[in-house]
């Protein structure tokens, strides 16, 4: 006999085998998911979920695909949250202190309640990365926010109306494009390819008969 637990999906009670994820439990209950289900592996942020264990005062958040059901779990999903996404042309903007003020000024209304950090499904220090963004320290914001799946739970809990994932994304793009040092070898290689430097070498390999290709492949030198 399988161990079963009682859970409440949107308030309705279902008996579910212990050990299933919340997503698995919903499917066990008979839901054919369309919303609130994406990669099923914790990368896409589609399945943000809010729950409370009966009798517990604390409201918890998680990704439904990454969280095992518990007995007396009251579950509501948050398949969409209206984040503010400002439009910008990456070639026109730069990593200036003013850019956040222009695009996402609400970050300066942060009251330091830390609800964002407490609610992060990825355990990121969200309030800290917003603080970095306020100060124009985009590399630090980018690093601190790197694992963000943009599920939007932080924003749903924010009294200042901040769209944290979008602030983080802008910081990362500014970092990747403007602040990270240029890869000189990459620039050089692209130029060589544009010059056609490798075309002949490739053409020669492509013309070789299969047997010779096999020989080359099987005896190629492999970097340590």
């Amino acid at each position: 006999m399988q161990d079963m637990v009682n859970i409440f999906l949107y308030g309705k009670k279902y008996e579910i085998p212990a050990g299933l994820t919340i997503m698995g439990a919903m499917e066990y209950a008979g839901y054919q998911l369309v919303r609130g289900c994406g990669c099923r592996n914790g990368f896409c942020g589609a399945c943000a979920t809010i729950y409370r264990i009966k009798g517990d005062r604390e409201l918890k958040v998680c990704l439904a695909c990454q969280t095992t059901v518990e007995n007396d779990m009251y579950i509501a999903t948050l398949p969409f949250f209206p984040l503010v996404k400002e439009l910008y042309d990456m070639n026109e903007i730069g990593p200036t202190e003013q850019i956040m003020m222009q695009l996402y000024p609400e970050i300066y209304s942060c009251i330091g309640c830390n609800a964002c950090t407490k609610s992060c499904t990825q355990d990121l220090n969200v309030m800290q990365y917003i603080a970095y963004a306020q100060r124009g320290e985009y590399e630090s914001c980018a690093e601190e926010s790197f694992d963000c799946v943009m599920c939007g739970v932080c924003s749903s809990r924010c009294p200042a109306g901040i769209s944290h994932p979008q602030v983080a994304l802008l910081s990362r793009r500014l970092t990747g494009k403007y602040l990270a040092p240029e890869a000189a070898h990459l620039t050089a290689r692209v130029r060589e390819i544009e010059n056609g430097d490798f075309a002949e070498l490739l053409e020669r390999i492509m013309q070789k008969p299969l047997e010779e290709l096999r020989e080359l492949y099987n005896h190629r030198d492999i970097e340590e």
Partner: protein
Amino acid sequence: MFTPEMHASIKKVEATRQSRIGADLRRMTAQEKEELLGRYHPDYKKEGFAVLKTGPNKGDKVPTELAELLQAGSRVADLDLDLSAPDYNVDVLVIGGGGSGASAAIEAHEAGSDVMIVTKLRLGDANTMMAEGGIQAADKENDSPATHYLDALGGGHYANKPELLRRLVTEGPGAVKWLGELGVMFDKGADGTMITTHGGGTSRKRMHAAKDYSGAEIMRVLRDEVYNREIPVVDFTAAIELILDTGGNAAGAVLMNMETGEHLIARAKAVILATGGAGRLHYQGFPTSNHYGATADGLVLGYRAGAKLLYADTLQYHPTGVAFPMQIFGALVTEKVRSLGAMLVNADGEAFMHPLETRDVSAAAIIRECDANGKGIATPQGFGVWLDTPMIEIIHGEGAIEKRIPGMLRMYSKYDIDIREVPILVYPTLHYQNGGLEIDTAGQTAVPNLFVAGEAVGGIHGRNRLMGNSLLDIIVFGRSAGKNAAKASQDATVRELALAHVERFAAEAAAAGVRSDARSPLLLPNYARK
């Protein structure tokens, strides 16, 4: 959490760990690999395949589950559709919202086209988002596109279409540069040098990564760029059939709102199928590392419209899927774990192979270890072998796991497994569709103005793809499909829209003796308990 047997086996793994550090494991000879694949790789298991009775690949074998969908009835068969009053009218219609679709849309937009994306879930809900390990590009001093070409060709069993492969390797560095300029944060040293590692089957360290969120980082940026350009995205809307015009050119698609069931018509001068893979068809009962929407829809749509499949009988089973715990069964353990030095170890603590053989060879070797050799570790869902993650910090120093593979650390920590302390159990998982629709170097199929990009394409990777060549191909061929479709749309004159090809396909299937009550494309797997 671990069973007593697992605990006992971990002790054996720990006992041999130090002696394995720096050990030089032999790579298999070409002949050994061939024998191994023939006996243990799922692609060689005859029962898993069926011969197509109808369509452009009549007589060819494909996975049984795919054959059923390719030859099933159309979802538009009984619909009363008015094709003369389209709901959308664009130059370029991109079907699919993953990395290749987004890249294609960005380039079509850049070329001045009126482009629209339709996707059955959200923009970014795709295998791209889940690609962990990295993207290959021959941009280091000791490397060249020719070296990359040979690695991919040998790894692909010499079946890659040479012209497509040439394009992949030649445009690799340019693709990485393009992503960097969009703001993708690649792992770099203080002087800007890309931090690159090996992948299975590479002869040079050319794997570029963004920690172990490589695909997610790329997808987040591409998605943001699509939004910044205000390219229309019609989400939660699936393409359920292509529309050709009376001249036989691709000219749009029948769409269906996934939530309301409403049908809509999109008219376009060129169409790009960027619908991704098929892991959710669970070939041969394997679990999958794929996205929820990976159901081969594009192959079905393209096949009915007359596009040919290439290598649809070759699938990639990623050697290291999660074998335990059950909650994440089948999820991907990035190949980067092996790139960083973790070895594959059996129940007795023996490293049974070189950790960086190609994916097909590695998967077959793990199956052999569990099956014929009887040295797997029993799990509630089958068997697994150890991937000795603690080796990584012995080799690269404390903190290396958190720095280089934070996603893996997090995934397991949710189940109280600290991969810095204990090894993890892995078994092959259905990961990638090596084959797909055949294209020319412009990305076009045999159907005029029908382009394909991304995992739905067959031929670039031959019969086995190397790690890091998929993130590369979605960018290279996605961009190129976008540019070429934009160009084609400028010259296209769309005649009357029609679905005659769907009726013709159904008639031919019936004449060939196909009997099916099923409808395709599948759109989503059905996991709801009946």
